[in-house]
């Protein structure tokens, strides 16, 4: 994967997740208490799941970018 592809993929993930949790037509469907997911009310689960997914993707993004940059020959300060 190239760095450009990685950034494009990250932008798409970001826009999709933010649209999912903020756009009024979607939140109208999510705004329910039942059914519970993992012991949490329906909407609460997604309120937590979206930032957790974003946080996990940030870690993956960082690790992938490090690998690409190291492969491309960035200098390391030992």
């Amino acid at each position, binding site marked *: 994967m190239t760095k450009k592809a990685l950034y494009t993929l990250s932008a798409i993930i970001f826009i999709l997740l933010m649209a999912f949790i903020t756009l009024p037509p979607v939140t109208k469907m999510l705004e329910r208490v039942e059914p519970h997911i993992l012991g949490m009310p329906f909407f609460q689960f997604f309120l937590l799941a979206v930032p957790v997914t974003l946080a996990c993707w940030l870690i993956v993004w960082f690790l992938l970018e490090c690998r690409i940059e190291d492969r491309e020959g960035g200098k390391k300060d*030992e």
Partner: protein
Amino acid sequence: MSNIAITIVLMLAYFVLNTVIIKLLGRKQTSLEEFGVGERSFGWLLNSFSYIGGWYTGTIYTGWFSNASTIGVFAQYVIIYSVSSLFLMFFMAKPVWVLGKVYNLETQGDLIELRYGSRKFKFVFAFLTFLFWSPWLILEIKSIGYVVQAATYGSIGFNIGLIVVSSFVIGYCFLGGARASAVGGLVQGITFTIVGIIAVYWLIVKVYGGLGDMYDMVEGFNKDLLTLGALGGKYWFSVVITCTLGGYILPGVFATIYRADSSRAVKKSVLVAPIAGVLIGFTILSLGLGLSFFPDFPADPQSSAFWISNKFGGPIMLGLMGILALAACMSTISAVINTSSVLISKDIVGTLAPKFTREKLFKYARLLTIVVGIISIIIATMNIPNLMFISVVMYDCTVQAFPAVFVGLFWKRANIQGIALGFAVGCVFSLMGNFFPETIAWGAGWSGGIIGLFFNIIIVVICGFAFKPYHKVQEIFETIKTYKEVYSKRII
């Protein structure tokens, strides 16, 4: 030992710990670069926790906590925008850091001047961003007074508390500059991240029996707290988007990027900051969610975090909650004061007096730490109605700087005409929407900030095609593309 003495001793011990660590890791301040951006030498861990410290305000233990008990899960927008702002920071970490390193940028205004080639716009931009940011400084200083009073059973007055603690923060910012602010942020950030998450989760178990029991209780009393309630989806969208874009545009975020020893050190903060942010926000707001159903819930909900700590954990937990809230307040205040003093010195004084040397601007920056601090303390002791409202309005205005910074970093055609006009139009809509909401009634429920941002971006795009970009823009983008970075392994 009395309960009051226990909480005061705990908080004093925390101040001693802060003083010792700041003194041990501090450096003598000799230049503007050292004072403003710590000579771009911060390792990833120092940078991460100073970012967390600056980002999470003390109001999360007062205002936001009380919001959780009154508006329910809506208050959790803070968790979403904290992580999404980090996403945007990741996108711009490299260009901002590289330009900072190559062109010796120390403020957000420096970046604006470099990108658009206009000192006049830099002056206006810096002045307005400081103006939009300053209510949060007052709010945080006020929060200190509130926290000290609540955590000492009212034995230490509001004004005395805020004056003493704020003076301590101003003192170490004056003496130690950006490094002292960051080291303080490291200590304070670790405190309310690690100790805070454990302590607050312990309280959730003690108070409710666990998260599941808490949700059952809330469902039984008021299901609306588990949805967006009467505030509605459009308001939710407006709040999350303006906070995401506005939060990342704050001058302190740029200072954090400049201070790192490489753009990789900035990006590495994502190993800690987002997960820590989710846990801090989720635990504290979950604790607040069901408290309003307790019969002895305080009349002033802002004190409910301290009330519940004392009720279930006695003076030791109350003292600990006081420390957590003070840590959050102090780290934010130090970040704002340090960044603001450099911003005023370099972007405002330096623009008005271009012949001033860097040595002179350095002296002004140090002096301004005291001046900004004292003026903020004086304002914080006054009774200002609607301060929280003013702060939110300012966020609506802050978000209008988004195209100037973000679009300008990635789109070569963005130019001064579009940025200046778009910023002005966006701010007018934001102010109209908040102070004269009837003027934007045609906006079908969208906030003034979102309507303003919409027109702002359209203006930037139209002007991008109508006018020529700054003649050095190609060179700036080439610098970002070709810069070979040294990836440091420094931690602190």
